[in-house]
């Protein structure tokens, strides 16, 4: 309360009346000196000597007036220009210090800008697609289980059968697309007649439904992208779309890339087109290098290179075990499943164990485009109403079986919580660096100031604000 009163009084001091108060103070001090001199005179001291003694007892008049003035009102910018000039002078005099300070700040700013723009891209920037706000990802509201193999949220993964069923019944959407991200596929490109560029290595790809690119609104920068006709018959569409990044870096921007042969896991695929550089796939913070139709799934390797991959499109639904109750209570390491009368058993390194919940192999992530006039809740209830005939118990026992989330939000849930964690850590780190820089800078400056004031003529209690009242000291 008192502090507030003082603050307000000093604030008032900024608005006029200060000249009058300065004059009043001067008069007050003059009266003080006169009274003191008079008293000395009464004690028999000569008039001149009395006046000198009075001044001596008072201390510095100018200094008193200055302190008084500083206390009377704030000086927000009164000395700012002087401080600036003083700072510039000190920096010019101290080139080494200046160099270190400037470099420190430069590196700090650079690191921060980089981190923040990277984190921004990872966490918040929409995908480079047409009207990204309309694109939503589907989750199962009932189950929130982490996939033992990939560490990803299993609630974002669906079987092909569920995808097909939803695609047919969810009429509120402009369409639903499915994608399975495959981390490490063997990719080989041999030199062609027109280009010597070749490639052999492992690359990240997505196997996607035929409507993937049209639904996202991504247009080819060369050739054409996958269409529904490329995704009709199992194993009958050996076509591949490459990313612009892969095309530029690995194939030397070969102008005749369309029609070239790319071997994926030893199977030949024809390049039909290149995506624009801005589109890096549906996995945020990661670059997808190639896209092949969902129907070619049999030629892709599973997460750990099982050969051949499980073929859900043929109707032979393989069961996927959510977890295996091993001796230590968890873990999903198992070699195979053996059907028994009590249910399937897992074969693990420690022998046969009881299986956890069994569901269809589910690796597909499903995205849908919702037209602007359809609400999320309406679409969710339509999904749930149509899911009644899905035989799996996990879709039946929960009141809210399916949930929808806009892509920018869903990415935080779905893919690798590690990416988010690392991003946030990086962001926190850069903020810390920034704070340290902020704290260090004034300390360094004040060091310089202290040195100066120490070298000021003795008798001057503190270094006066730059340039002000040297005469006093």
């Amino acid at each position: 309360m008192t502090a507030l009163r003082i603050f307000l009084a000093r604030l008032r001091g900024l608005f006029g009346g200060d000249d009058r108060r300065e004059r009043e103070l001067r008069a007050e001090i003059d009266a003080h000196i006169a009274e003191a001199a008079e008293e000395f005179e009464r004690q028999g001291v000569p008039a001149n000597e009395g006046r000198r003694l009075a001044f001596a007892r008072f201390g510095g008049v100018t200094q008193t007036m200055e302190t008084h003035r500083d206390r009377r009102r704030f000086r927000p910018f009164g000395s700012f220009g002087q401080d600036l000039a003083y700072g510039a002078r000190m920096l010019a005099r101290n080139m080494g210090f200046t160099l270190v300070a400037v470099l420190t700040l430069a590196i700090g700013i650079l690191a921060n800008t980089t981190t923040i723009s990277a984190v921004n891209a990872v966490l918040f920037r929409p995908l480079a697609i047409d009207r990204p706000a309309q694109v939503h990802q589907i989750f199962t509201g009932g189950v929130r289980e982490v996939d033992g193999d990939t560490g990803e949220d299993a609630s974002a993964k669906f079987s092909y059968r569920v995808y097909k069923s939803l695609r047919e019944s969810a009429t509120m959407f402009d369409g639903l697309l499915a994608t399975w991200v495959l981390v490490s596929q063997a990719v080989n490109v041999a030199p062609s007649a027109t280009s010597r560029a070749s490639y052999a290595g492992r690359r990240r790809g997505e196997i996607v439904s035929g409507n993937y690119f049209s639904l996202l609104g991504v247009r080819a920068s060369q050739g054409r992208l996958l269409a529904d006709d490329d995704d009709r018959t199992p194993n009958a569409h050996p076509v591949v779309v490459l990313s612009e990044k892969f095309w530029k870096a690995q194939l030397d921007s070969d102008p005749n890339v369309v029609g070239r042969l790319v071997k994926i896991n030893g199977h030949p695929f024809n390049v039909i087109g290149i995506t624009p550089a801005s589109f890096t796939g549906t996995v945020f913070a990661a670059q997808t290098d190639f896209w092949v139709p969902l129907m070619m799934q049999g030629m892709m390797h599973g997460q750990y290179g099982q050969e051949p991959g499980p073929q859900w499109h043929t109707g032979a639904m393989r069961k996927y075990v959510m977890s295996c109750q091993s001796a230590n209570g968890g873990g999903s390491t198992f070699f195979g499943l053996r059907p028994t009368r009590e249910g399937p058993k897992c074969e693990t390194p420690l022998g046969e164990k009881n299986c956890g919940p069994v569901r269809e192999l589910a690796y597909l992530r499903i995205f849908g485009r919702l037209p602007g006039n359809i609400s999320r809740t309406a679409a969710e209830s339509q999904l749930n109403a149509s899911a009644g005939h899905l035989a799996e118990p996990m879709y039946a026992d929960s009141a809210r079986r399916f949930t929808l989330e806009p892509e920018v939000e869903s990415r935080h849930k779905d893919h690798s919580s590690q990416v988010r964690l690392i991003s946030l850590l990086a962001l926190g780190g850069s903020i810390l660096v920034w704070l340290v820089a902020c704290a260090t800078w004034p300390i360094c400056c004040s060091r310089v100031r202290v040195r100066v004031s120490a070298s000021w003529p003795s008798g001057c209690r503190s270094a006066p604000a730059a340039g002000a009242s040297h005469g006093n000291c």
Partner: protein
Amino acid sequence: MSDVLYGSLGLIILKTLEALGPLHGYRIARRIEQISGDHLALNQGTLYPALLKLEQAGWIRSSWGESDSGRAVKIYALTKAGRKHLAAEEAAWQHATGIVARFFKIQDERS
């Protein structure tokens, strides 16, 4: 002047005004010197910023008047808020110095 006393200049001024009633700056300075038996080598000038602070806090108020010798001087007087503040501070001061004093009284208890 020791640091302890420097920090309590405001309190000393308030107590002086309470004891003697409204005074002008020079009288306050002289009174402080007299009471302290000239142990406080006060730079009299430091009084004025201190007075300003007390006035801003609302503990004293000032008005122009006349000194004994008929000179125009600013007279400072304790306000109601100042009286209250002084009472509180005085109690706190007694309490604090009392505690410290008790420690100084401790005899060597090792033998």
